[in-house]
């Protein structure tokens, strides 16, 4: 692994309930850049983030973060490693019994011995960055979906991690918060040199911020390269995905027998 790589995934195999999700995936996530992992729903993009974070164990292959082999670490060492990571969950996953301020303060309180006034300042700086300083006293149940995700982002960056992973950050966002999130992800990367992994199938937004893109399908890396090179890709499967066409080598329909045969067949229900 070269010095400029933060995360490297080698020959990763993973299956769930007997169904293979990954069969031989290799990824290199360079330091200080935004890398996107894209692919149709159900290809295991979120699973990949959980494998990198050590929340799941692969069948074979390895994941390195810095110099640590994630799945060889002891439970304690794994939790220490995660302090250098931030993850933005699709649902936000805020602690429902703590208000906005305490949610963002949580990582600071458990991992640092900072005095209360410094914690307050740091939390307010992070909340200011996501535009929610005024919402500090609200409970998670009182927030909209977009606000929840922004608070979760403030919490994920509370300890200034080296690596931040975004799980479907744009899903279910209105156009304004979508734009805000795109700008935030870009700014965090450029201002703090944070390495970012964005998992998404929102092509336009993701390609606009990513430095490098991996497209995963059928358990393998189907294509990788800069956003421009993917836009011009010749591979029909890649171009179908990037241009969002329903017809192409990737079928829209779940595998089944012929439609007419199915409709005209004698009823299975008596």
């Amino acid at each position: 692994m070269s010095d400029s790589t933060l995360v490297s995934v080698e020959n990763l195999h993973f299956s769930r309930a007997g169904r293979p999700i990954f069969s031989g995936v290799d990824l290199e996530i360079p330091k200080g850049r935004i890398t996107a992992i894209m692919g149709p729903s159900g290809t295991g993009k979120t699973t990949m983030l959980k494998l990198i974070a050590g929340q799941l164990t692969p069948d074979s292959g390895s994941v390195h973060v810095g110099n640590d082999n994630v799945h060889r670490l002891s439970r304690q060492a794994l939790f220490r490693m995660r302090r250098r990571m931030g993850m933005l969950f699709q649902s936000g996953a805020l602690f429902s019994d703590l208000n906005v301020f305490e949610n963002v303060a949580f990582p600071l309180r458990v991992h640092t011995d900072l005095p209360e006034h410094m914690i307050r300042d740091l939390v307010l700086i992070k909340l200011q960055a996501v535009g929610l300083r005024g919402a500090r006293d609200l409970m998670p149940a009182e927030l909209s979906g977009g606000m929840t995700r922004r608070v979760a982002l403030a919490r994920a960056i509370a300890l200034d991690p080296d690596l931040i992973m975004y799980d479907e950050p744009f899903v279910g966002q209105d156009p304004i918060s979508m734009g805000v999130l795109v700008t935030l992800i870009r700014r965090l990367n450029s201002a703090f040199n944070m390495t970012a992994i964005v998992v998404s199938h929102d092509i336009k937004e993701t390609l606009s911020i990513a430095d490098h893109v991996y497209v995963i399908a059928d358990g393998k890396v189907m294509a990788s390269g800069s956003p421009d090179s993917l836009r011009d890709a010749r591979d029909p499967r890649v171009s179908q995905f990037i241009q969002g066409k329903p017809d192409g080598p990737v079928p829209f329909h779940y595998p089944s027998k012929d439609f007419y045969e199915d409709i005209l067949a004698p009823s299975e229900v008596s």
Partner: protein
Amino acid sequence: MSPLTSLGHKTLNTLESLGRSAIFLVQALFHLPRAEGVRLWLRQMYFVGVMSLPIVAVSGLFIGMVIALQGYLVLSGFGADEALGQMVALSLLRELAPVVTALLFAGRAGSALTAEIGLMKATEQLSSMEMIGVDPLRRVISPRLWAGFISMPILTVFFSVIGIAGGYLVGVDWLGVDQGSFWGNMQGSVIFLDDVMNGMLKSVVFGVVVTWIAVFQGYDLIPTSEGISRATTRTVVFGSLAVLGLDFILTALMFGEF
């Protein structure tokens, strides 16, 4: 799948689940407590213990009153109604207080623990805690386990005391049993080590088992609404059956003469 294969499959699944729950218990229990841990434990003592107190107190009162009433009807037939205090105290201390408190605890606190932890799992709060570098076994599970272990014997003491008061109310105040013989017979027949401590030992065992079942069911459930509902039901069913089954074994060991 043939019935034999299916039986083998179920047996292996059950054994695997038992193994997981044992590892889970060891990982959650054994680590050095810190100041923060004590604060979290006190908070859970309130939710698990103090909040269960009203239902335990009311049940204890009524059960004490019923035993006194039933006991009086039988004992007075033999002219032995002065033994009422002894009967109320022994049935409460040895059996009813630990068992009924544990059953109420499984229904009131156990189901709440399972549902709470399950919902935290379903909304990815446990997962996000892990990503922040905090072990949920220490932060979420351990304080709840210790709170259950410690509050059960305390609740049992409350149950016994209030139950005996209920028995006094009915037996002495209402039915006219002599106050001196009510307390005197009780004092003469209840042996501290045999009766009180054995009852307490039972409640300690029940506390461990019921809380363990409740917390593990919440942590291990399938994170869907159906999964949460099934796990909550399992907590109450498994918890109650475990209490009744263990009660027989413990009673045989403590009071049986082999």
